[in-house]
């Protein structure tokens, strides 16, 4: 961390400590990047005892439906196919029959041509370089990933490039939690990258309709502490609004060009979230203009509905759904650190660098607790 922002962070910490909070306060974040900073900087052990920071649905890999991963595995096993996917998608396990590959990584080991990529442009390059192959880009991610995917599409797509799109919008998951009547948090830290693309306005509904203080944060500890202070201060003062604590990047209206390209390429549809279920108007789908590149629509690649359903069953004991919803901390899952480790992940939250379980494990949290909160402390 830069030294001057270190001092800034400490000054926010002082201000937080001087607040007179009336009761336990739970602040949820919905971005894997935020959770990483919180854990890596050790924010939880320097905040006052009554303040809890809860990781919520902020990991695109964790909420990607098993059915889609199963579909990707099946397509990868087809002749002449190159399946390209973001690196952290490869190790996510799904429920497949014995002898069949349970992850893209296993499919790759069994001979399928699966390529880990880091940017949508690499998928396009693969397609251009291999005109005699079908290149299928399994694109899972939030708005921040879908914007570059759309930009790549808008510039023209080779005929042999297909998309298996599994893109999601972030705010509908938060809306769903709030409307469930049992959100489990008192204030929200909204994702800085998403707000940079889509604009801060998307997050106004949290304070306006649900009376919860909200702040948009960047990824430095100083920015996260500023946002934490902003929401706690509002709770103390009995106020409630949206504060932008990441003004360097987040501007009103977001990135107009990126939003325009998103609208040009995608429709917004109801979508499944792993462990959560269907959330209305929460997914990106290729619009008619790109129908010829939609891997889901290609008949010879369709999967058997029964097998899809089985793939969608969560492994026994896996608590990913409750972790993703912020109902429990990662180390409250019975499998945490026992059956489920980064080397042998059971659920997706232990695979992705954005997944709360992986973030906590990488931060050195080894003890699992099955008692009530707040039993989790980093060190």
């Amino acid at each position, binding site marked *: *961390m*830069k*030294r001057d*922002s*270190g001092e800034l*962070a*400490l000054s926010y*910490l002082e201000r937080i400590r001087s607040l007179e909070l009336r009761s336990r306060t739970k602040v949820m974040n919905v971005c*894997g*990047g935020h959770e*990483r900073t919180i*854990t*890596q*900087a*050790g*924010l*939880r*052990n*320097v905040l006052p005892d009554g303040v809890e920071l809860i990781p919520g649905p902020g990991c*695109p*890999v964790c909420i990607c439906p098993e059915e889609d991963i199963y579909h990707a595995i099946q397509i990868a096993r087809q002749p002449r196919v190159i399946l390209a996917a*973001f*690196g*952290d*998608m*490869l190790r996510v396990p799904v429920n497949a029959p014995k002898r069949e590959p349970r992850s893209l990584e296993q499919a790759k080991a069994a001979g399928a041509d699966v390529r*880990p990529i*880091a*940017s949508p*442009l*690499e998928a396009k*390059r693969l397609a251009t370089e291999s005109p005699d192959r079908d290149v299928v880009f399994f694109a*899972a*991610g*939030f708005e*921040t*990933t879908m914007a570059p995917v759309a930009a790549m599409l808008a510039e023209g797509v080779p005929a042999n490039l297909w998309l298996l799109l599994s893109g999601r919008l972030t705010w509908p998951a938060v809306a769903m939690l709030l409307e469930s009547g049992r959100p489990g948090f008192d204030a929200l830290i909204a994702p800085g*990258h998403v707000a940079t693309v889509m604009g801060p306005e998307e997050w106004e509904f949290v304070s306006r309709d649900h009376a919860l203080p909200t702040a948009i944060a960047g*990824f430095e*500890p100083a920015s996260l*502490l500023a946002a934490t202070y902003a929401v706690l201060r509002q709770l103390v003062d009995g106020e409630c609004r949206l504060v932008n604590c990441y003004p360097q990047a987040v501007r009103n209206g977001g990135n107009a060009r990126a939003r325009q390209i998103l609208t040009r390429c995608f429709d917004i549809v109801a979508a499944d979230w792993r462990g959560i279920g269907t959330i209305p108007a929460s997914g990106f789908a290729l619009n008619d203009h790109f129908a010829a590149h939609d891997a889901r629509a290609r008949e010879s690649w369709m999967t058997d509905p029964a097998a899809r359903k089985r793939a969608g069953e969560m492994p026994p004991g896996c608590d990913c759904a409750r972790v993703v919803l912020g109902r429990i901390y990662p180390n409250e899952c019975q499998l945490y650190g026992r059956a489920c*480790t*980064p*080397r042998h992940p059971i659920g997706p939250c232990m695979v*992705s*660098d*954005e997944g709360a379980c992986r973030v906590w*494990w*990488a*931060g*050195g949290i080894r003890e699992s607790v099955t008692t009530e909160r707040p039993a989790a402390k*980093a*060190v």
Partner: protein
Amino acid sequence: MTDTHIALAHGNGGRLMRELIDEVFARCLDSPSLDTRVDAAPVPGPADDCELCVSTDGFTVQPLEYPGGDIGSLAVHGTVNDLAVSGATPTVLTVNAFVEEGLEIALLERLVHSMGQAARSAGVAIVAGDTKVLRRGEGGGVYFATTGLGVRARASDLGPHRIEAGDVLLISGPVGDHGAAVMLAREQFGLRGDVRSDAASVLGLTQALLDLDGLRFMRDPTRGGLATVVHEITATSRHGARLRETDIPVREPVSSVCEMLGYDPYYLACEGRVLAVLSPADADVALERWHAIPGGEQARKIGVTTTESPRVILETAIGGERYLEELEDDPLPRIC
């Protein structure tokens, strides 16, 4: 050399191979002690108070060239540095080259030139070598393996077994540069930045400390980076270690790349840095000496060993703490 690309025949032991060795390796390495016609090279025997050290390493980095270095110089620095941190002065190197059919000879020349240059500036002679040509598709352009011989004082006794609680950890410069540079050169992240590999010989840095009685241990944090080396130190010495985040130098472009891609700079490879553990009494002298030599200007004390359980604790800038654990697998590029 008349050919422009490597053919399988360049590895067949005949005229083409001769040409490859003489006109690329001998010419580009430009080492007077390299006799390409002998199979074994004599090495000056050590005096009574010295012993020979040997070290060997293979190099397969992709891409072959990246900002701040290439596989040729890396193959020299890697082995030279392994000898240097064990307290030895490297004297001679041997080189094995595994060249893939189809490699452009102009590229090979550039790499071997840079290898020769690296060897000369580290003061080590390349005295023997071997070349194999792999079929197209069997190698990533070129792989190198180098073996180095060095001499060190018999009295030298460096190792984690000498580390005591309360010792001081020093790093000779900013961490993560090599790893970040190679990653950026490899992936099409569409990111550009002033990130260059730190690859260099660390011989000057290690020799500057060798006469200090309080010098316990040195290591160059290559694969797995700083965190992995400190982790090893705690695991073998059975002492704890505490590092201070604000004291660990990370260059600004490296930390922004890491922030954007979700990497931790403490786990990214360095190829020209030394981590040294010293008694508190000698740590200040060591730091002063490093500051005075090229490559050591940004050296810092970054932490201490403790009587706590053998884990690495990072004290963060805001006064929090976290453990630095062993790497689980290759870091994957993050998705959003």
